[in-house]
């Protein structure tokens, strides 16, 4: 084991008002520097837990290129910090299941309706109620769409394309989803029976924790031209969906962390944290994990698409056929993808980080080629969310990656000790926000004070040149997982 007792805070060098660096020489096992996008205030919050030490640990992994990055919403995770980005050469670098996380392709999608907030305000209670009845959330609520093994295989390999055939997605949806809602290279055989069993009845479900479906109102436009390209206008009603690959993804990660942990010695890799278990990308274990992770990522896109299908039904039932929800974009924020950066093929791990490609990138969807790929940043419950677009400079700055949310700043236990769930509910209700949550305990754990200030986090991302602010969304109703 490597000595990780070096105090990372003391090694931090200020590069600019939004970038700090821990140099490679800080620890003998670091291969590249560790860089943190933050201003002084956020850096203080990020330094209050073990995020920086975890980021330095990531910098020790074989094949790391340029630098590893923490986004301004970073906080302590397990292995990788949440809000961490790292790229490893596919030729001789690693892939790490812990660097993607258990909720493979956890992500966010934004839909917009033609309706104005005042047109749905009188019905908001009913709409939120129907969404909570129709979209299973929390423990024990299973999907109405149970999948056979053969159907799951099609989900794994075809992603959202399969749902077009099933009448639950449109070509427009595919064109407005990261990677068209389907990564290639899925290996269904690499997904264990246990993973299939956990995921079989969970497509179209939200899960628990910080997952949600929120009815939003476009509160403020920062960039009218970009907003127009994205179909956003002030006061328009929107829907934000945050969930991932559910038990299926969790089990895929568990299976491969265990498999790689057992293979470390054979590959001659030593780690400062066992959860960073990894294997060379090109090895049998590396390729097997990549194939299973792709399958789980495609499952997650289908999950958000099926929730979209149900939400569209609810909007039509409650508000009529004029209330159709159009997909603006869907982004992953827990994923490993093979990309080209600096003329090299690398496997970029984004763990609690959102891809943020600029207008010139070929993978930016055609509809957004002139503005940049939409970057969706949900805030904490009740505080609002942000829509940004990636900038071309992000490729150099962070392998084309931005933050993924506000980022926790205190534990669930601390949050519960600070405020009772009933009080959180009252405060949200006083702001006119309709809330549906399985328990007050979970409401307390997800209270706004448990998170960093999302406006501040997003400002740092913009000032750093990674992404550009387009609009801010205000919350009208929340269905919590």
């Amino acid at each position, binding site marked *: 084991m490597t000595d990780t007792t070096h105090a990372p805070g003391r090694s931090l060098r200020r590069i600019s008002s939004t970038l700090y660096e821990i140099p490679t020489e800080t620890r003998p096992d670091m291969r590249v520097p560790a860089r943190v996008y933050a201003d002084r205030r956020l850096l203080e919050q990020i330094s209050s837990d073990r995020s920086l030490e975890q980021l330095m640990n990531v910098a020790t992994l074989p094949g790391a290129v340029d630098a590893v990055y923490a986004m301004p919403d970073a906080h302590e995770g397990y292995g990788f910090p949440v809000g961490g980005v790292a790229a490893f050469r596919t030729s001789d670098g690693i892939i790490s299941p812990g660097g993607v996380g258990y909720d493979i392709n956890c992500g966010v999608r934004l839909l917009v309706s033609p309706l104005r907030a005042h047109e749905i305000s009188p019905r908001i209670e009913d709409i939120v109620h129907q969404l909570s009845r129709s979209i299973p959330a*929390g423990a024990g609520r299973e999907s109405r769409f149970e999948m056979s093994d053969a159907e799951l295989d099609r989900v794994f390999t075809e992603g959202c394309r399969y749902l077009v055939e099933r009448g639950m997605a449109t070509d427009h949806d595919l064109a407005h989803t990261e990677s068209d809602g389907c990564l290639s290279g899925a290996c269904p055989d690499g997904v264990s029976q*246990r993973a299939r069993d956990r995921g079989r009845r969970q497509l179209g479900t939200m899960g628990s924790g910080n997952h949600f479906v929120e009815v939003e109102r476009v509160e403020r436009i920062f960039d009218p031209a970009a907003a127009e390209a994205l179909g956003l206008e002030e006061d328009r009603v929107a829907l934000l969906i945050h969930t991932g690959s559910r038990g299926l993804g969790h089990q895929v990660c568990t299976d491969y962390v265990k498999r790689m*942990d057992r293979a470390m010695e054979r590959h001659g890799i030593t780690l400062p944290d066992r959860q960073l278990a990894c294997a060379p990308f090109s090895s049998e274990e590396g390729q097997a994990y990549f194939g299973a992770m792709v399958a789980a990522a495609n499952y997650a896109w289908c999950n958000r698409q099926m929730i979209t299908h149900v939400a569209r039904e609810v909007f039509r039932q409650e508000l009529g056929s004029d209330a159709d929800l159009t997909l603006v974009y869907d982004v992953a924020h827990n994923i490993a993808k093979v990309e080209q950066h600096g003329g090299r093929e690398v496997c970029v791990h984004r763990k609690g980080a959102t891809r943020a490609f600029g207008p010139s990138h070929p993978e930016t969807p055609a509809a957004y080629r002139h503005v940049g790929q939409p970057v969706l940043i949900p805030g904490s419950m009740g505080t609002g969310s942000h829509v940004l677009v990636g900038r071309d400079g992000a490729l150099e700055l962070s392998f084309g990656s931005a933050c993924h949310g506000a980022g926790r700043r205190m*534990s669930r236990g601390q949050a519960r000790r600070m405020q009772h769930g009933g009080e959180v509910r009252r405060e949200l209700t006083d702001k006119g926000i309709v809330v549906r949550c399985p328990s007050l*305990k979970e409401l307390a754990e997800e209270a706004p004070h448990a998170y960093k200030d999302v406006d501040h986090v997003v400002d740092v991302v913009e000032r750093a040149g990674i992404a550009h602010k387009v609009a801010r969304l205000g919350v009208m109703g929340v269905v919590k997982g």
Partner: protein
Amino acid sequence: MCPEKASTSIDEERGHEYVDHTSEMTIRVRAPSLAEVIGEATRAFVALVPDRSRGAVGRDEREFRLEAPDRAALLADWLNELVYLGEGECWLPVDVEVTTLGEASVLIRGRPMSLTEPFVSVKAATLHGVCVRETPRGLEAEVTLDL
């Protein structure tokens, strides 16, 4: 996510507690032997199941034989078994009888509590900081759960 009831009970020799973590939760366990560490960790895990999901004590006893490269991995493997059983089969043990078969090898018999709904709040037991270490009074173990 913490247990609904204050089930934390630990002293220098025995018991379990939940340690704060920014986004996850660490379980710390103390017990005189590996078998009792497994038993205590099982109680700590099952205490996370909300009251509304708890059913009657059942008869569907099960037996598990686990072997891992070391004791820490064994502990994580067992908790991941519980994650799967709670979510995939609505089965969790109210009590376990653990027989040590080797340095990192155990036989576990569990008497079940039926769950009225799948327990989905824990995604996995991670290997982050997982340990089973000797102390002057026995063993102390830590494992971080992804919530």
